[in-house]
């Protein structure tokens, strides 16, 4: 058991958990952040994506002991008081959601991309989302959603 102190969606959290517990399980089981999905458990599908110290990571591949002192953002942290992130709005508007199992991972990865590069080209969008698998949409509407969100992001400024 370790004392895990970290910041999740802007809030400081302290937990006693086994050091070898996966960050994915800490988020889902201990903190009830169920947007973080498990699709493969091997770092291959991106369903468990979170923003970890500013970068997208697969939370199934991070151990609790590695998360100590870190800053983690999950999909739950992107909307504030019912106000959706422009990416979330764009995913709804463009029909980029089908079964929705991959959606949290894509939106989180998309957010990390836009934070780093607010006006990505199509190629940059594809590079930024290449770690996330979707079996339903064929990806086209997801690219459109990210592009739409960049416009929305821009108009907010």
């Amino acid at each position, binding site marked *: 058991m370790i004392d895990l102190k970290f910041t999740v969606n802007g809030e400081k959290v302290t937990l006693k958990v086994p050091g070898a517990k996966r960050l994915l399980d800490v988020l889902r089981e201990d903190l009830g952040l169920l947007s973080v999905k498990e*699709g493969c458990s091997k770092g291959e599908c991106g369903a468990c994506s979170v923003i970890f110290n500013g970068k997208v990571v697969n939370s199934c591949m991070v151990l609790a002991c590695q998360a100590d002192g870190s800053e983690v953002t999950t999909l739950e942290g992107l909307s504030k008081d019912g106000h959706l992130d422009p990416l979330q709005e764009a995913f709804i508007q463009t*029909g980029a959601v089908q*079964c929705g199992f*991959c959606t949290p991972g894509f939106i989180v990865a998309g957010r990390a991309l836009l934070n780093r590069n607010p006006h990505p080209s199509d190629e940059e969008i594809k590079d930024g989302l290449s770690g996330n698998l979707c079996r*339903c949409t064929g990806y086209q509407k997801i690219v459109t959603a990210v592009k739409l969100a960049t416009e929305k992001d821009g108009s907010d400024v």
Partner: protein
Amino acid sequence: MGQSVPRVDARAKVLGKGVFAADLFFPRMLYARVIRSSRPHATLTRIDLDAARKTPGVYAVLTAEDIPGRNEIHVVFNDQPFLAPGRVRYVGEPIAVLAAETPEIAEEAVAKVVVEYEDLPALFDPLKARGHSEIHLFGTNNIYKHLKVRRGNVEEGFARSDIIIENTYRTPYQEHAYLEPQGMVAVPRPNGLMEVYGSMQCPFYVQEGVATVLGLPLSQVRVIQTATGGAFGGKEDVPTLVGVQAAILAQKTGRPVKLIYSRDEDIISMSKRHPGIIRYKSGAKKDGTLQAIEVEYILDSGAYATLSPVVLWRGTVHAGGPYRIPNVKVDSYAVATNKVPAGAFRGFGSPQILFAAESQMDELARALGLDPAEIREKNLLRLNDETITGQKLSFSVGNIEAFHKALDKSNYFEKKKQPKDTRSPIRKGIGLSTVYYGVGLGAGGVHLARTGAYVQILADSSVQFAVGTTEMGQGMATVLTQIVADELGLPVESVYILETDTSRIPDSGPTVASRATTMSGNALKDACAQLRKPLKQAAADLLGLAPDSIRLKDGWAFDAAHSEKRIPMRDVIAECFRRRENMAAAGFFRSPEVSWDDETGQGNAYVTFAYATNVAEVEVDTETGAVRVVRITAAHDVGKAINPQLVTGQIEGGTVQGMGYALTEEIVTKDGVIQNPHFSTYIIPTIKEAPEIDPIIVEAPYPNGPNGAKGFAEQPLMGIAPAIANAVADAVGIRINELPLKPERVWRALRENETKTAL
């Protein structure tokens, strides 16, 4: 209607609030695991559960001997046991199940189970298995089903042909790779009711399985679908296994039991697309007119029959493609082998045979010096033509329109004319496919062709409705919400769909065969028609008119002749409640009749057909064999697009899944053991490979569909592999008869061709 309203489940899903099976937690919940066979065919000589049972925190370990009901999972036949009773027939077959306090303890206990086997000779090749004299996996010949089509006289047809082309094609085992693995949670209620929640397409199948194995009346089993993270046929019959695995442990322990498959367990033990072997002989006149086809179609079906007889049936009916063919002989076989049972997968036995059929069309064209588009246009089915099963197409035939739209929009002929740059190692090619899709279950599933629905209007003018079919990402919930809103004249925002629950709706059959929109849509229309009577009466009384002249639309009831004479629906509904009218209605729908003769394979196989033309543009790297799909133009006749954005979503998703089938996806087995049960070794397309897709909607309304709609969501996958293979052949002049067109295979074909031309 016809509007792209946002999905009703989109907001919850972008917030991460979709509740999937793994997201359910119940007090005192246990975690289940399955002990599986490591042998493809063996007698179980000893199962030692002692150590597992004694592990602290383990509450139950059960084998075939502990089953209170019947050890049977009924799909089409009753050949599949729930837990292997003394003999295993594939690697991954369930032998025992256990439940423990935590997933870790469950894992530890699984490792303590000792299973001893005596190996039996096994069969992995359907060609060897068919009619094998010594090893009998099913009946005396290992054939689950033999189907035939007999039309005209093929000998005469070939005799009249100027050209005959004959080839053998092979297609791979394809994995569904839905992003959410299989999962179920079973919750025993104190009154004896067993509730099962989970990821599935067919709750009524799960209900039947749980009742059979647990020895419960159907009325004591309630199955509720959770959000389902993709299915594509992979959550049709196999979730029954998962549901019963959880439920039998819940029954034994009296505690809720959760069972979520890991990805590799899912890939190893759940259904796949059948590998296919297709011998295809086609004959045509000089001008390209088809004269005859003779086809042998073999499906490697694995260790139990599951859905193979009906998968085979759909493939058989689709054997000719969307063409006029006067003389047809098809023989198809579903063959038993010692592999994980193959089952339903988007297209359901048709993508395999269409790959062959559409490759043949291009080969005929090549031999006759015709353009692939020209030969197709000559033969495409038109209104009042007959299919190979003798079904007359007397309505809703968008075949030609889809064909022309796809060619025009893709600039096919323009691009065809461009000379090939033979100096560059990258060769461009363009290819097409035309396919059709029998909507619904057809004559392969007549007894299931019914659906129920339930609609109630509440006092505040909001509406709840329920259906027996399921949402798995395809958009059913949204389309049905639009239909209910339209039927009752209320805004979409006030209509809410309830989760699919077997206790709420009569058995509505499976959610397969792209049937949810047409079947549930019609059942909902029936329910809404009942509710419109009191609504119209009340509106008529309030407006001082006759009920017949009332229209209900967008929250208003008005005089059809003078629309300014109107009152809000809110007032009409309040009046109905004042009158104590029944504002709840059950609706029902049964499909129009279909027919089938097993001996001749003739009959009206489906209620109607959807049609599609795909144009694929590729670049082949002749140095590496890599194929890149640049663009796909996909025109689909869907009858009527109730929500165009959902339709294009289905087209795009199916197209990319079809591209995976064409280029990379292949489950590899060695002695019956799956070698690539991970996303790092089973390669599905990522966003990087996804081509530009131009979806085109064609609408040839289906008179019996809700607002003219016909189901079609399987179709987008069906014609992609042949379109790509035809484009590759166009690019490099080589026909490859085996999928997937992975770089090694293309590279080898290119080198062999070089050697041949050098000789």
